[in-house]
C-alpha cells in the first residue's frame, strides 16, 4: 500500500520523460504548421505544401541528416565529431578524382571512399580512446587533416564530374544521385537519408551494441566496471561517424557533379544543431536517432519557409540561432532520471 504513491510518482516522471523525448517532434509540427500559415500562396495554392517543395526540403537536409545520424552515435557516448564536414569534403573530392581522373567504376570508387571515411573515423576514435585525448581536440585536428588531404588529393581545385563512357568521364549511374525517382518526384538523396534513418533507428532499438552505447554515455566508469568494452564502443562510434560523413560526401559529389576541397565547410555545426534540437544530450547517454532526424527536418523546414518569405539572409542566421538556444533551454526542463 505504501508503495502506491511512489509508483505513481515514477509513472508521472516517465510520462514527462516521454513527452520530452518527443520534444523535437512537437517542434517539427509547430514549425510545419507555422510554415503552412506563413507560406506564400499563388492562386490559392499553398506553395510550401507543393510536393516539389516538400521534397526539396528533404533533399536539402539529406546530407546534413546523414552526418547528423553518425554524429548522434558519437554524442551518445559523450563525444563530439568536428571532422565530419571536412571528411565530407575529402570524400566528395575522392569520389570525383577516382571516377574522373582514375576512371574507376562506381562500385570500387564508392567502396574506396567509404573505406577512407571509416578508417579516418576509426583512427580518430583510437586516438581519443586509447590515448585519452578529448574528442573535441582529436576531431579538431582531424578536421584540419581531412581538409589538407582533400586539397592535396584535388590539387586545390574543384574536380568537375562529366558523365559518359570515355576516358576521364564518370559512369552515368553515378549521376543518379542528382536525379529523382517515382516519376521524377522523389530525390534519390532523400531516399538514401530515409533508408539510413530507418536502419539506424532499428539498430539502436535492437542491437546489444546500443545498450553498451547508452551505458558508456550514461556513466563511463560504471560501464567499464560492469564489463562493457568502453574503448571498443568509442572507436566504433567514430568509425560510424566517419563512414556516414563519407557517404554524405558521395551524395554531395553526385548532387553537385563536382568534388571540391572546400565542400562541407561548417556542416559539422549544422549536424550538431540537428542533434541538439533532436533532444540528444551533449553530455551523452540520452537521445535518439528519431530525434535527430526530426531535428534535421525541422531545420530544413525552417530554412525553407524563411527562404520562401525572403527573410534577409542575416536575419535567417539569427532566427536559426534562437531556435537552437530554445531547444537546448527546453532540455534543461527535462526531468533527470
Amino acid at each position: 500500500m505504501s508503495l502506491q504513491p511512489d509508483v505513481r510518482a515514477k509513472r508521472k516522471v516517465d510520462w514527462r520523460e516521454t513527452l520530452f523525448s518527443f520534444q523535437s517532434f512537437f517542434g517539427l509540427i509547430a514549425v510545419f504548421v507555422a510554415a503552412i500559415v506563413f507560406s506564400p500562396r499563388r492562386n490559392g495554392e499553398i506553395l510550401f505544401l507543393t510536393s516539389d517543395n516538400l521534397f526539396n526540403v528533404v533533399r536539402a537536409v539529406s546530407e546534413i541528416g546523414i552526418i547528423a545520424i553518425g554524429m548522434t552515435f558519437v554524442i551518445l557516448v559523450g563525444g563530439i565529431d568536428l571532422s565530419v564536414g571536412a571528411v565530407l569534403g575529402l570524400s566528395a573530392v575522392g569520389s570525383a578524382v577516382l571516377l574522373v581522373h582514375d576512371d574507376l567504376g562506381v562500385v570500387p570508387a564508392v567502396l574506396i571512399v567509404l573505406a577512407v571515411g571509416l578508417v579516418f573515423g576509426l583512427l580518430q576514435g583510437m586516438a581519443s580512446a586509447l590515448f585519452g585525448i578529448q574528442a573535441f581536440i582529436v576531431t579538431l585536428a582531424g578536421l584540419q587533416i581531412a581538409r589538407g588531404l582533400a586539397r592535396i588529393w584535388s590539387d586545390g581545385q574543384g574536380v568537375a564530374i562529366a558523365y559518359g563512357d570515355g576516358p576521364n568521364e564518370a559512369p552515368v549511374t553515378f549521376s543518379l544521385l542528382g536525379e529523382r525517382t517515382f516519376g521524377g518526384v522523389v530525390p534519390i538523396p532523400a531516399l538514401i537519408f530515409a533508408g539510413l534513418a530507418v536502419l539506424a533507428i532499428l539498430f539502436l532499438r535492437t542491437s546489444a551494441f546500443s545498450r553498451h552505447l547508452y551505458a558508456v554515455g550514461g556513466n563511463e566508469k560504471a560501464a567499464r566496471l560492469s564489463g562493457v568494452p568502453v574503448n571498443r564502443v568509442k572507436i566504433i562510434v567514430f568509425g560510424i561517424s566517419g563512414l556516414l560523413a563519407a557517404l554524405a560526401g558521395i551524395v554531395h559529389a553526385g548532387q553537385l557533379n563536382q568534388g571540391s576541397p572546400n565542400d562541407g565547410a561548417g556542416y559539422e555545426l549544422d549536424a550538431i544543431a540537428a542533434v541538439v534540437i533532436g533532444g540528444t544530450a551533449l553530455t551523452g547517454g540520452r537521445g535518439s536517432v528519431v530525434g535527430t532526424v526530426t531535428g534535421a527536418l525541422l531545420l530544413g523546414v525552417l530554412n525553407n519557409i524563411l527562404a520562401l518569405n525572403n527573410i534577409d539572409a542575416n536575419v535567417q542566421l539569427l532566427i536559426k540561432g534562437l531556435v537552437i538556444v530554445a531547444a537546448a533551454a527546453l532540455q534543461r526542463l527535462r526531468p533527470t532520471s
Partner: protein
Amino acid sequence: MNRLGKGTSDVKRSIAATACLMLAVTACGTTSQNSGKGPATPAKCEGPGGKYVIGMSQANVAEPYRQRMDDDIRSAAAKVPQFEVKFADAAQDNAKQVSDVENFLTQQINLLIISPNEATPLTAVVKKAYDKGIPVLVLDRKVDGDAYTSFIGADNRDIGRQAGKYVAEKLLPNGGKLVELKGLPGSTPAQERSEGFHETLGSKVQIVATGVGDWLREKGQQQLDAILKANAEVDVVYSHNDPMAEGAYLAAKAAGRESKIKFIGIDALPIPSGGVKAVEQGRISATFTYPTGGKEAIAAAKTLLVDCKQVEKKQTLPTQLITKENAERVYREANG
C-alpha cells in the same frame, strides 16, 4: 468498371502514403506539378502592363564586390515599377545555392539572375529553371553548357591586357622593375588577369618577384613585406585586385618606400573602402573597373519582360581606367 478503377486508385494511394511515411515527411504534397523537361519556351510576355518577380541568387554577399552587385540590382530595379526583386545569399556554399534557386522556382519567379559560386555544381539547377521557360541571366561567373538566356560579365583577360599596356606605355616606357601580386591560385580571374597582363607588358619591364596574395589585403601586405626586403629596387606593383594593392601599399609605407613605387589594382569598386577612393586619395596610382553587371542585368530583364524583345547571348562589359584625373567624377556618377 467504376469500382475496379476506384480500387486500383486506392492501392496507388496507399502505396503513395507508405512512401510518404517511409520518407518521414509528415505531410505529402497537395499537388504534383512535377513537370517534364520541356524545351525552353520563352515566358509569355505580358509587356508593360505585367508585374514581374525577379529572383537574384548571389554566391556570397560577404564579398564587397558581390554586395555591390546586389546593391546595383536593387537600385536599378527600383526605377522599373513592374519589377520586384528577391535576394538570396548562398554564403559560398554550392549546395545552399542550389536550394536557393529551387526555392525561387517554388515561388514561381518570372526571371532568374544568378551569380554562381562555381560553374559545374550550379549548371543543373540553372538548366532546370531555363527548361521551365524562366529566362536566366548569369552574372560574372559562368555555368557549363548553354542552358541560360544571357551571360553578362567583364573580360578578365582583356583587363589584364589593358593593365599590361598601361604599365608598358605610361608607367615604365623605358623599362623598370615590377612585382606581380596574384589572386587565389586556381581561380579563373587570377589566371586570366595574369595571362592578359603578360601578353602586352613587353620585354623591357623586368619582373623581379611574384607573390600570391589570395585576393586578401593582409596577404598582399605580408607578401610585399618580404619582397621589398629581398629587392632594393621596385618601380611598380601590379596587383590582381585593389585590396591586395592596398596591403602592398601599407607594406611599402612601413618600409618608407611608398613614394618610389606605383601601385596598380583591379576592381575599382565605387564604395568607400574600394579602389576608386584609394586612387582619389593617392594610395593606388591606377585601377581598372570590373563592373558588377547589376545595372545591365536589370536592363536585360526589362528588355525581355517589359519590351518583349530578345537579348544577346553574351554581353561583355567594358573596363575603364581609373586614375587621379577621373576618380572623383567616376565615384560620384556611380553613386548618383
